[in-house]
């Protein structure tokens, strides 16, 4: 019996993140918040929402990757998070098939 049976605990060793990294991320998040606030004073037309959402997504990724340690975690954990994101994209994209084409051929 040589089969690999129990998953090897790749993420068993706890990764200690150094404080300077936390500080850098924290400052980046603050800077991005300032950026969002600043940009809201300029009218960019359709890009108002696009840019605000892009910055928000970037910030969320930083939190998940560093504060929540995903960057240092096992492939299995990364896959788990990816599954969530994938499902969310399914929700958005398939719903959009309705919104984009609802009025086709009507006018």
């Amino acid at each position: 019996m040589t089969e690999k049976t129990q998953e090897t605990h790749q993420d068993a060793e706890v990764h200690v993140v150094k404080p300077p990294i936390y500080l850098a991320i924290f400052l980046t998040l603050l800077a991005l918040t300032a950026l969002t606030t600043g940009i809201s004073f300029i009218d960019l037309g359709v890009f108002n929402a696009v840019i605000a959402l892009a910055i928000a997504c970037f910030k969320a990724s930083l939190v998940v990757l560093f504060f929540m340690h995903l960057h240092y975690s096992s492939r299995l954990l990364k896959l788990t998070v990816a599954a969530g994101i994938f499902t969310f994209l399914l929700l958005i994209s398939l719903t959009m098939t309705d919104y984009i084409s609802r009025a086709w051929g009507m006018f």
Partner: protein
Amino acid sequence: MSTIVSLPDQATAKLPAKSYLNQEYGLMSWLLTGDHKRIAILYMISISFFFVIGGVLAGLIRLELLTPPSDLMATDTYNKVFSMHGIIMVFLFLVPSVPATIGNFLIPLMVGARDLAFPKINLLSWYLYVGGGIFVLSAMVLGGVDTGWTFTTPLSTHYLNTHVVTAAMGIFLAGFSSIFTGLNFIVTVHRMRCPGMTWFRLPLFVWGHYATSIIMILGTPVLAITLVLVALERTMSIGVFDPTKGGDPLLFQHLFWFYSHPAVYIMILPGMAVISEVISTFSRKRVFGYTAVAFSSVAIAVFGFLVWEHHMFIMGVSQYSALVFSLMTMLVAVPSAIKIFNWSMTLYKGSITFETPMLYAFGFIGLFTIGGLTGIFLATLGMDIHLTETYFIVAHFHFVMVGGMLMAYLAGVHFWWPKMTGRMYPEAISKTAAVITFIGFIVTFFPQFLLGYLGMPRRYAAYPADFQVLNVFSTAGASILGIGYMLPMLYLPWSLIYGQIAGNNPWQATGLEWQIQSPPLTENFVEIPIMDHEAYDYEWLANKTQHEVQTVG
């Protein structure tokens, strides 16, 4: 008739001196337990309670529909009764039915672990369920909700003054209880398999629950968010679902069905998981096409997320989009069909015996097939215009949910009853109950296909006199069905005291759970087992039994 049941000599047989049932005594030892087996029992008692309430409401619906005018209750009361019936049966009975009871009990036993990965979260999940149940009951007692179980906007957000938010809160809580169950199963299956238990040695029961857990974790949060949005819309008029504020009522439908279609697979996959075990045991054969059955569960879980718009075909969605979803819906029926064919092939040349769980399993196969095929009718764009919102839909989903899942639940409860309690249920009366259930089911729900096809709409208290004959059939069938469900509720508790002692392995089944004492020890296994064979290996079992006979006697 031949049987495979082998019980120990009743004159000398005793229940094991120590088991999870008598490890500790007192109410607190149950309410604060971390033992997955005890939590399963807690769940079983609670869902039975809600099943009875939901069942009484169903009885009231059928009684009202016995005659064409709305004479038993006012029309708005009728709306509240069917809404509460749907909410209770879907969220408080069917979703937790097999996974939270039988699944909770068996997953650790089947993977060879001492408990689930997070016992406390498991207990928390039960408390959330009870909290959700209390909210739903309060909504009912305080005056009811009349949105239907689907909470359709703008009805639920703009036009009703009933307890929508209370009921939604209840479902929100129950949703989190099912997320926690799913989380526990996934981590347990990944992390806690015993040595030698590879993925492809897992019983198909575990595969089915793994697939279910994926849906629970990825789908249920969307339901939770949607219900919160409904509550915010009602209380603060935030406008997401309100066209006058730039929102869209159909957005609610997208979000709701994004969960609720996959949720119908939460309500069937665990049932299929039970059927695989039962069919194999009572035909003494390895499940035909193990890998195909295992992967079809996962395929159902994944592709189940791509079809939700079939609930919205007549609501004014894009026709082009509807075309895509119609096609996807037809495709998702394929993995279900794979399972049906594989079970049939398992029966082929098997040595079949007809114990109670097997009778329920046969009921499942027949009724689920009809239910699934009528789903294809509904997935056809043109046909759906005629059939949607009629009794045809009601018949469709009762065939899959009641004819499918409820039958599977009863199959599972009977199959593992000896393991859970250490005692057998009474065989003759339980077979009668299984047959009564099947007949009652057909008489209740088959006429509803005809009614729907003839055009009787769902969700009305009154109907034209032409439809009465078929409705009388349906109500009569419901009475038979009621007897069929009452019997197990009487003889199962009876068997706790008077049932025959079952011994470790009354069915001579191959699963790990059958190789330990019944009822099991709190820690399940004295020593963590080492798995050295595939699931459903009847030769291994025969060798093992022979070996035991030689050494013991």
